[in-house]
């Protein structure tokens, strides 16, 4: 029997788990692939970030292909920051021929936030228009309506930030993304189940699978930093206290415990989770183990 892919699993109502790979700044990709292989039985697919935080790195598409070669399922993240509409469409076609079908369309961080602040930001398209364009490609046409010789097939995803203020605005955009072709969503990190539940209620009607975002807390300091700086993220006081109280060598354990608690809570609410380990890949199995009911 053929292995089921992300889209099929979601269709069948499996609670899916995705994780993330951040390609290195350089060519040393092997350790990252190893990490992924290590947890491949627990994880349904791996997002590959596209020059995350506008920092120049190894490309997302190449890494996705390497995952395919190892029979791991990638989710190709593609941003509008660095490519104009020509490159974006072309890269989408490339992805398809390289066996990459899951595409997560993002606007992308601004160039000035990364390590090349002097770069020219492109932003020719944005996440919504990119989704629309990808859908059109699937229909056998490019965005100007020109016929394609061979058309791709994608499982298109997008992101949404449940902790965003004002939330309605985020939902309006989410609706637009769905209209443009998004078939699943991954969210920004969730720490507050109550407000996540509210969010899920509000978007229930759209009937698209949503994978709740999980970011492992590394310290109380990181939690505070995120509260202050990271959009749409609020870590509740109780978790900050838990992290602060933990001894250094116990922090990972506490963090895993918090993540597991959140995942357990999410199981009834959404259709899966998306874990962003940010360097703590090695704890992913522990998290999944601890969150098993």
């Amino acid at each position, binding site marked *: 029997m053929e292995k089921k892919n992300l889209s099929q699993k979601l269709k069948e109502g499996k609670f899916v788990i995705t994780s993330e790979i951040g390609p290195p700044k350089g060519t040393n990709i092997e350790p990252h692939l190893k990490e992924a292989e290590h947890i491949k039985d627990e994880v349904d697919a791996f997002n590959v970030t596209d020059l995350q935080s506008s920092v120049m790195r190894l490309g997302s598409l190449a890494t996705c292909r390497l995952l395919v070669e190892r029979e791991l399922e990638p989710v190709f993240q593609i941003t509008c920051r660095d490519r104009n509409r020509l490159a974006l469409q072309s890269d989408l076609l490339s992805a398809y021929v390289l066996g990459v079908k899951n595409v997560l369309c993002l*606007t992308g961080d601004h160039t000035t936030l990364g390590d090349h602040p002097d770069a020219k930001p492109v932003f020719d398209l944005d996440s919504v*228009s990119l989704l629309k364009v990808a859908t059109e490609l699937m229909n056998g046409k490019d965005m100007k309506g020109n016929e394609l010789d061979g058309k791709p097939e994608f499982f298109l995803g997008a992101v949404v930030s449940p902790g965003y203020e004002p939330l309605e605005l985020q939902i309006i955009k989410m609706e637009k993304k769905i209209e443009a072709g998004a078939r699943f969503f991954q969210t920004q990190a969730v720490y507050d189940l109550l407000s996540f539940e509210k969010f899920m209620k509000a978007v229930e009607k759209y009937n698209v699978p949503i994978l709740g975002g999980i970011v492992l807390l590394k310290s109380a300091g990181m939690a505070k930093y995120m509260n202050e700086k990271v959009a749409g993220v609020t870590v509740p006081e109780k978790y900050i206290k838990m992290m602060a109280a933990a001894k250094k060598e116990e922090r990972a354990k506490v963090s895993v415990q918090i993540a597991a608690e959140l995942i357990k809570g999410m199981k009834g609410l959404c259709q899966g989770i998306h874990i962003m380990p940010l360097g703590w890949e090695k704890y992913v199995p522990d998290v999944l183990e601890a969150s098993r009911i």
Partner: protein
Amino acid sequence: MLITKLKSSNELDEFFSKKLFVFKCFGCSEVYFPEEEINNFASGKQEKISGIAQIDYLCNEDFAKRYIEKNVDRIHNCEGIIVFSCGVGVQVVARLLENKAVYPGCNTFYLNGFQGLTVLECDCGQCGQCYLNHTGGICPITSCAKGLLNGPCGGAKNKKCEVHPEVDCGWISIYERLKKINEGSTLKKKGVLIRNFEKIIKGI
């Protein structure tokens, strides 16, 4: 609105390896002009300066011509010309004095508002396909750091832009404006907007 800042002294020193005639344009000084810096710099280069003409609105070809006529001898004897003005003034002089090397003494930047009434609070992205009907009259191209047309990115925190933390997120401002004029719901109805850059080349 264009404004200027003095170029780095390294760059200027290189220009002043020759004997130069100096044009200083003060037309826009009511808005912003690095006058003191220019004067200080020039006073340190006395022996390299063959003459100085202080003028208003060098970008006016007619005026520029008359200044050049008035200084024709001194200009004839110099090895090059340095112009302290915005890029437009420099280009006018360079065109009128085609056979002389003309150097810009300043770098040019723009402030909000193009040639409207000097500086403004708002700005226009000169996109050629005004989107203000969709956005409650706030320009999404200039008020959003990414110039997004279809709603905000996810980066705003406390209603502030992810790129400029002390600046309001343009899209949140747009949304709030729309609600005030009872148009909050229209945002959903609009189709997907995509810019047409060809309009710019064709001048719409």
